[in-house]
């Protein structure tokens, strides 16, 4: 079986013994093809979402993650679905990697009953209980203590797993993150704090939002590692290490250097606070999909034509998934009142007109 050894980009650490870090990663054709597939699928989901949004088929907030796909795919390559995952509103990539189909993802965004949350949550609220994906959260920072609570539950139940808690550079200043970190450190919880540093929180560059932009040091007593997260193998190896560390020692603080190609959300053109050259440069030099594609092509694991076929097929599949999701039924009026409480007992849920209330 053919394997490939790849040198990993340099890493910066904080209160962490850098010699423990791998400097290279071993991978295979099979792996690389899977990574390519997954990353490209996520990108197509985002591109397709963009189109449907512009066509007013997706509503409200919609935060796309293209440019950051290496993170979502790389993380999962280092852990299992027994490890908990929680993130913010930019959650399409995670939803897909945690087992949701493009169909169910689009259905959710289209507000269909076949959506992952029956259409009740929308773009910011994907969850998958069976794969331990806890969302999807619209309140900046809030997912962090919640994620530490998931780590608490793992430790309480003596499970050999970690909780991966993702947040942005803008969110990094939220006090509740410091509070949760302090508790995670005191109680040695298997909480892996992951700052996706894509350089901007909405329209604010990190330097204007954070007095300390070395996000990997922000756990204070918690050891930190900063990596180039456009490199999927670096992400994967870091997560493997993080899992071991988390279970054995407690919290770890990761900073993932990345970049979002898009504006903050669909309503932000994303060009007033940064220039096109900056975006183009990342696209040209740090694209996570291109990185894997080059590994594949350079090592002749597949031909340009094969790659193009794969891309076409994914494009097609994603397009079809969206088109089919479009045809799904929307939630019926009676769904308005369900899912407030469990169905174990009946409570009267009031409707706009009292007479339309229901015992559910």
């Amino acid at each position: 079986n053919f394997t490939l050894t790849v040198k990993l980009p340099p890493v910066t650490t904080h209160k962490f013994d850098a010699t423990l870090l791998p400097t290279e990663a071993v991978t295979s054709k099979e792996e690389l093809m899977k990574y390519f597939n997954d990353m490209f699928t996520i990108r197509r989901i985002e591109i397709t979402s963009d189109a449907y949004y512009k066509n007013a088929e997706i509503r409200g907030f919609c935060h796309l993650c293209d440019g950051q796909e290496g993170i979502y795919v790389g993380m999962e390559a280092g852990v299992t679905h027994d490890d908990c995952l929680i993130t913010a509103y930019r959650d399409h990539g995670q939803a897909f990697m945690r087992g949701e189909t493009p169909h169910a993802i689009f259905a959710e965004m289209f507000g269909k009953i076949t959506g992952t949350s029956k259409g009740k949550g929308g773009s910011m609220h994907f969850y998958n209980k069976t794969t331990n994906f806890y969302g999807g959260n619209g309140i900046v920072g809030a997912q962090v203590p919640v994620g530490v609570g998931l780590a608490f539950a793992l430790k309480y139940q003596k499970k050999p797993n970690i909780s991966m808690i993702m947040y942005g550079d803008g969110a990094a200043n939220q006090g509740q993150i410091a509070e949760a970190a302090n508790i995670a450190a005191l109680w040695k919880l298997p909480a892996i704090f992951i700052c996706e540093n894509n350089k901007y929180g909405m329209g604010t560059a990190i330097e204007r939002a954070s007095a300390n932009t070395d996000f990997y040091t922000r756990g204070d007593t918690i050891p930190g590692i900063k990596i180039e997260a456009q490199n999927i193998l670096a992400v994967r190896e870091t997560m493997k290490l993080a899992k071991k560390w988390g279970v054995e020692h407690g919290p770890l603080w990761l900073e993932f250097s990345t970049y979002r190609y898009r504006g903050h959300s669909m309503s932000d053109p994303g060009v007033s606070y940064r220039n096109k050259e900056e975006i183009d440069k990342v696209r040209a030099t740090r694209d996570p999909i291109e990185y894997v594609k080059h590994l594949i092509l350079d090592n002749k694991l597949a031909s340009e034509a094969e790659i193009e076929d794969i891309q076409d097929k994914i494009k097609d599949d994603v397009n079809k998934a969206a088109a089919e999701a479009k045809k799904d039924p929307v939630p019926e009026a009676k769904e308005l009142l369900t899912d407030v409480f469990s169905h174990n007992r009946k409570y009267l849920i009031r409707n706009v007109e009292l007479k339309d209330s229901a015992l559910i």
Partner: protein
Amino acid sequence: VSMTVKEAINSAMDEEITRDSRVFLIGEEVAQYNGAYKVSKDLWAKHGSNRIWDTPITEAGFTGIAAGASLGGLKPICEFMTFNFAMQSIDHIVNSTAKIRYMSGGKIHGSIVFRGINGPAAGVAAQHSQCFASWYSSVPGLIVLSPYDPEDARGLLKAAIREDEPVVFLENEIMYNKKFDCDDKILDKDFILPIGKAKIMRQGKDITIVAHSRMVGVSLEAAEELAKKGIEAEVINLRTLKPLDTETIINSVKKTNRIVSVEDGWPHGGIGAEICALMMESEAFDYLDAPLERLTSADVPAPYAKSLEEIFTPRAVNVVNACLRVCNK
């Protein structure tokens, strides 16, 4: 059996922690210090550090952690030293907990009890005396309980811990050390009171007084006074604030044709306001011989001085006055 409200809460937690290994207590000073008000006395000694957790003074942090632990399959009892401090973490109660079942289309939910002191206490001034009963009751996805006596406290807290939903459990500091003679049945390890059911504390035919928490006692005191004046008041202890037991209230009003509400929260949009709405929107309206009168705390921050504090919350005399007016006496 003779018991204080504090003992009732303590024993309910003790037994439920024993009964279900997923149940744990988390909050400030709840373990080694036995609770700032000694509500968790001996629990740490008995159940140990894996079940009783002292946190730093970081409400947003530990409430979020409790919420997350509940999503992860545990059943936290999250204690606030007082609910005033939960204003620092109310986002987690509302956005991370109450709404999540709905937002996830039923996939994710937490079973968790948020409990602690609520409402005006004695001599602690404005920042430590707020009643949050109506705020929490307004939030879909939350169950809100407000016990009055040890029977309520034991039966409702056990129900809350066993419930599959987020529950806000509002205690009252002034009531903690009040001793009551209770029916022995409340000692049963499975003594559970139904959520959504009020209790008629005193039967009466002339007027209905609706109250919760400490105000139930004030109302009972007023009822005694009224009895001397020939007015038989029916006193309803709401017990559950959300969902309200509308049936018990309506049936009582059908009988008495008159109603007064008593609470120690502020007036605007309080429990009394919601009961006014219930009167408007139910058949009770047709039975009313007089409009409802609300008694609430004054619409001011809680004062410290005793001379003011005494008149800040409803007293029996206010309830008597209101009942006399409503009865046209």
